[in-house]
């Protein structure tokens, strides 16, 4: 049968692209118009000269990195152990890991405030350190579905059980198996989970705002309400940053030792030719 040109699907792809690109372009154009009658980077200068911008960005970046470290340390061993020894529990663990996706962050925060508020046994919200700890914990929970999915998919693609047995049959201890066989093969998955955690935490608003932390998300919203041109510049920069994160993630997620940068595209092409 002849393959008619896929009008419908092309239309949908074009519309979807426009839906992202047109607002982005409009925003970008607007961000250059701070000085009347000429194109300039004044809005960007204004943003970068702001102390609050730098301090909130730094604060959120540190919190995100902390969330990545804690999240990976929790998720990777759990996912490994569940696949290796408790395969029956996998659906349950997967279900638990998906919960944060659908429980609104608001609920999470209420729970925390109730639990760790000034009248509780563990009054974490009364100190800065405690509140920071709660924020990072919240970010870990928020990014749990993505981190778990990424790591678990990575493990699914390499048959963790047989690789572990192969390493053991060659005399390797459990620790050595994990360090030399398992981790190197899921490292790219952990990294892609980390990038997702980073992008989610960096711009997060509700948690940071309710815990009253000096984070980047609330700053973005604040600026959005108070100024005209700076938010556009911020939006463009945030977009560029997340795009870069995403690109890096794709790169690490699909890279194999000695392989090219866009292997999946290459693979799809060659598979088609083979028929």
């Amino acid at each position, binding site marked *: 049968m002849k393959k008619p040109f896929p009008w419908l699907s092309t239309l949908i792809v074009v519309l979807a692209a426009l839906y992202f690109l047109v607002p982005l372009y409009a925003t970008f154009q607007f961000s250059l118009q701070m000085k009347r009658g000429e194109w300039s980077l004044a809005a960007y200068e204004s943003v970068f000269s702001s102390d609050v911008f730098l301090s909130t960005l730094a604060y959120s970046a540190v919190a995100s990195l902390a969330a990545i470290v804690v999240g990976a340390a929790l998720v990777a061993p759990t996912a490994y152990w569940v696949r290796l020894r408790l395969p029956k529990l996998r659906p349950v663990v997967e279900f638990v890991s998906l919960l944060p996706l659908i429980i609104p962050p608001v609920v999470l925060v209420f729970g925390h405030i109730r639990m760790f508020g000034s009248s509780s046994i563990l009054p974490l919200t009364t100190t800065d350190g405690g509140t920071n700890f709660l924020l990072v914990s919240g970010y870990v929970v928020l990014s749990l579905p993505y981190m778990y999915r990424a790591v678990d998919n990575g493990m699914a693609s390499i048959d963790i059980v047989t690789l572990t047995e192969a390493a053991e049959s060659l*005399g390797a201890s459990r620790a050595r198996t994990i360090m030399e*066989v398992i981790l190197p093969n899921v490292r790219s998955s952990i990294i892609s989970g980390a990038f997702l955690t980073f992008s989610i935490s960096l711009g997060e608003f509700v948690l940071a705002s309710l815990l009253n932390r000096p984070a980047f998300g609330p700053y973005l919203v604040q600026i959005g309400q108070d100024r005209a041109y700076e938010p556009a510049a911020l939006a463009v920069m945030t977009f560029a940053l997340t795009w870069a994160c995403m690109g890096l993630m794709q790169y690490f997620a699909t890279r194999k030792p000695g392989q090219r940068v866009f292997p999946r595209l290459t693979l799809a092409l060659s598979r088609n030719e083979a028929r």
Partner: protein
Amino acid sequence: MSFLKLSAVSKAFGANVVVKSFDLSVRKGEFVSFLGPSGCGKTTVLRMVSGFERPTSGAIEIGGRDVTHLPANQRQIGMVFQSYALFPNMSVFGNVAFGLKIAGASKPEIASRVKEMLDLIQLGHLADRYPYQLSGGQQQRVALARALAARPQVLLLDEPLSALDAKIRVSLRDDIRAIQRELNITTIFVTHDQEEALTISDRVVVMNGGIAEQCDTPHEIYNRPTTRFVAGFVGKLNNIPAIVVDPDAGTVRVESDVVTLEPRAVAGRKAGDPIVLALRPEAVSMGTRSGDVVLEAKVQEVYFLGSVIRLKVAAAGVSLSLDIFNRADAPPPDVGSTTHVSFSSHAVIVLDS
């Protein structure tokens, strides 16, 4: 002198007993296959030898040492898996070197041993490739080299050929056998493919329901099965119903003919007992001259398999399969034609009806 010894080994998962009091002695350098349908316990026995499963009862000895309670990484085994299980993050060299590194070998020692192993499997030129760049057959060769590099005491092969194409399966099978002989390494091979087991082994253990039904050379297993299961599972079998006429003379009646077998074949049976004469397809020949039992036959089906032509003929009231060799100058007989088939009474296996 047995090198690998399993004594009354049993394994139960919960209430499900998978292996029942399994005994086996394997000599140093012997190649033993476990053959059986899926679920017969053959893989579980292998995994108990490797240390991945612990027996519910019984003992396992390797090289005179009781390893029943030793973890897998201290048993000095080499294992090859159906799914190859090469480490994707390591090159071919890295994979083969892994066991040597663990054992603490020096760098030059590792380099020379890896080269030796890669030459053995004829993949010396691919040392720098990564597993995903190799074909299935090449990956399984590397897995074999990896398992052998650290000079294990026992080589364990868990259906290593099942994931491969027919042609590669045959050639790798022959290579495994040649390498095993060259290194004289004691080997256990698990398979559900009877041709693989018969071709490659010194001895075959036919398993069913967690029990070893028969353990003998391929020729004995195929030609002198001791249980009905083995007779039916290994090779194809023609069953001709017959009735004992005179057990002392060894005469039985097939349809209206009376046939004389060796008396010991019907020893212990009474006149009038219904029995089954079991015959391999290759024991039945076309024409009247190839044996002392001759039957009239009508060709029902002709299967041209290549070097062998398998015929299905109606004879003695049943449908018989018989194998003949292809002849370039003589096309196979036509379906529907009548002919005679004959077989030697020595080739008959007598089974209960």
